[in-house]
């Protein structure tokens, strides 16, 4: 989850919590308030009625031989009643009570007050329907809820937009400095514009780190160049010397054989050094990937290159790359080496009269190229170590250095190609190369 989303979510949740708290706490508070205000109103009305009675006499309400007075407003929300009562203890209460009004039971908040007027005692009751109080309360609660809900939604959206704007430099740093920085050689050191100190600090720290990485990368690059020169030069000297010795006609047969053996050792050393340097160079991105390579064409070229070896071992090679697939941003030479090494192994570990199939087909998320052979297969326990350097597995070939597949893996990694190996001992092996879609 994005930081801005988390911030906004937290704010939204905290607001919702406050909202729920308000919605939970407000009603009792509101109803208490409504009760107090109703009671006050009733008390005021009582005083008003008593003033009227003091000023105009009781006859204003109770006339002649009547013993009581009652009045309801139109919707029966309020009533006032005055009736003569026998003498007794004084009454002065406000309480809820149900009253039957025209076949309807209505709940009222009723102020009951007894007083003496001359020789007679009267009970004044002023009531206000609690229904109207509840309704006020309900309305208030509903409006409050909606208003708060809208407020939460609006402020959450505002937060989201603001956090997005605020964090934009952060995402730019991630994109430019980390995600799109494929290789130290192509680092972009342009400062990312931001007014936030924290992001500026992050950007500066990352740029410092990139400078360090680039320096060590350059150092390694130089080391590879120096190492290849320093290692290969004495080997070249040995090789030239053996070449010259071989052309010496006075050399005995015994010594000739010794020279040939030495030459083979030099060749072995040379191949190992060159292979290791190649892996190192690939890992250091010293091979430009600027070509679009057709797999159909590549398969045809590799097949052409191994024709004579196939003939010697009486092997048949079939190729079917339908439809063709073009690998973008690739290094043709490296892809050739990758496929050539796989096909070389398919030849080397095949049986007399065996088959090799190069099959290309679309696959989910891209394309798959398969190098299948009918050779001796690979032992199950050998499979996990297949691409390890210098792991010769079960091969008895004295000229195998266990680097061919290591180079294959390195080239595949560079091009984002996934490799899968299936093998059944005695039946054959299949290398599947998954090329990601363009």
């Amino acid at each position, binding site marked *: 989850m994005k930081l801005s989303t988390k911030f906004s979510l937290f704010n939204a949740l905290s607001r919702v919590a406050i909202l729920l708290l308000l919605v939970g706490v407000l009603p009792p508070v509101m109803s208490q308030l409504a009760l107090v205000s109703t009671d006050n109103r009733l008390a005021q009305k009582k005083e008003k009625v008593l003033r009227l009675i003091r000023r105009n006499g009781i006859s204003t309400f109770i006339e002649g031989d009547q013993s009581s007075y009652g009045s309801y407003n139109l919707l029966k929300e309020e009533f006032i009643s005055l009736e003569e009562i026998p003498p007794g203890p004084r009454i002065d209460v406000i309480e809820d009570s149900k009253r039957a009004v025209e076949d309807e039971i209505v709940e009222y908040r009723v102020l009951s007050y007894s007083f003496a007027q001359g020789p007679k005692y009267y009970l004044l009751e002023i009531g206000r329907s609690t229904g109207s109080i509840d309704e006020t309360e309900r309305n208030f609660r509903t409006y409050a809820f909606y208003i708060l809900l809208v407020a939460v939604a609006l402020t959450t959206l505002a937060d989201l937009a603001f956090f997005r704007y605020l964090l934009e430099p952060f995402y730019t740093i991630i994109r430019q400095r980390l995600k799109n920085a494929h290789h130290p050689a192509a680092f972009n050191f342009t400062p990312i514009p931001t007014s936030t100190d924290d992001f500026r600090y992050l950007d500066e720290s990352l740029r410092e780190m990139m400078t360090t990485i680039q320096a060590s990368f350059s150092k390694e690059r130089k080391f590879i*160049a120096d190492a*290849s*020169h320093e*290692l*290969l*030069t004495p*080997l*070249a*000297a*040995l*090789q*030239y*010397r053996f*070449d*010259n010795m*071989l*052309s010496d006609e006075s050399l005995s*047969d015994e010594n*000739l*054989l010794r020279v*040939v053996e030495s*030459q*083979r050792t*030099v*060749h072995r050393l*040379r*191949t190992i050094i*060159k*292979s290791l*340097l*190649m892996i190192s*160079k690939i890992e250091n991105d*010293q*091979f*430009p990937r600027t070509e679009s390579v057709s797999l159909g064409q590549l398969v045809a070229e590799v097949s052409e290159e191994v*024709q*004579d*070896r196939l*003939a*010697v071992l009486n092997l048949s090679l079939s190729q079917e790359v339908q439809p063709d697939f073009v690998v973008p941003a690739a290094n043709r*030479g490296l892809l050739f*080496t990758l496929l*050539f*090494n796989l096909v*070389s192994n398919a*030849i*080397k570990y095949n049986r007399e009269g065996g088959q090799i199939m190069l099959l290309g087909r679309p696959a989910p998320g891209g394309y798959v190229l398969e190098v299948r052979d009918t050779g001796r297969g690979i032992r199950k326990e050998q499979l996990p170590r297949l691409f390890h350097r210098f792991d010769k597995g079960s091969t008895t070939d004295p*000229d*195998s*250095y266990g*680097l*061919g597949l290591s*180079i294959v893996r390195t080239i595949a990694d560079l091009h984002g190609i996934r490799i899968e190996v299936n093998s059944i001992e005695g039946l054959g092996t299949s290398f599947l190369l998954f090329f990601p879609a363009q």
Partner: protein
Amino acid sequence: MTVLIVEDERTLARELGIFLHQQNFTCTVARTAREARTHLADTPFDFVLLDLGLPDGDGLDVLAEAKQNDLTAAVIILTARGAVEDRIGGLELGADDYLAKPFSLPELLARMHAITRRRFGLHKPLVGCGAFELDLQTRRLLHQGQEVSLSVKEFDVLSYLVLHKNRVMTRLQLTEHIWGNLPEAGFDSNYIDAHIKNLRKKLGLLADVEWLETVRGVGYRARL
């Protein structure tokens, strides 16, 4: 033919000199970029074998300058640096060929011969081998004017042996010539043996191939 060997490693320069001298080339050695510039300014050479990692500069700079001064010599870059940019840069600057160290000396000679044929037109149209003739230009083997059908690799093996006639060519040298520098190319002398066997079979149907000798445990020789 005259050759300028630009190489700072004393041993390498000496071995190269010995080999080329045996092949009737006249060699001069320059150990620094400065020496190379001096020699190139003084003497017209047929070939320049140029190492790139010189103690006082880059061989590519020497090449660029020499080309500006209308260098006519054929240039082969010999380097252990092996960076792709070097190869591309060298060829772009007008080098005729590029060999990554270490290479076999017969391979160097083969390249020099190829350049000679290409650049100076100093090729014999046909090279004799027994009752056969090799046409290196058109890559054909002829017997009494008729073409003998050979595979690409068979022709390569035969022409290499003929080019270095009377010298033992080890299986390794032949393999390197045919397969080049592909890593883990699966050096396997069996392939060379198989090609020789096929050549003997094909040529033996038409004439005697005694001149194509096997040197036990070492390799093959075209005794001509």
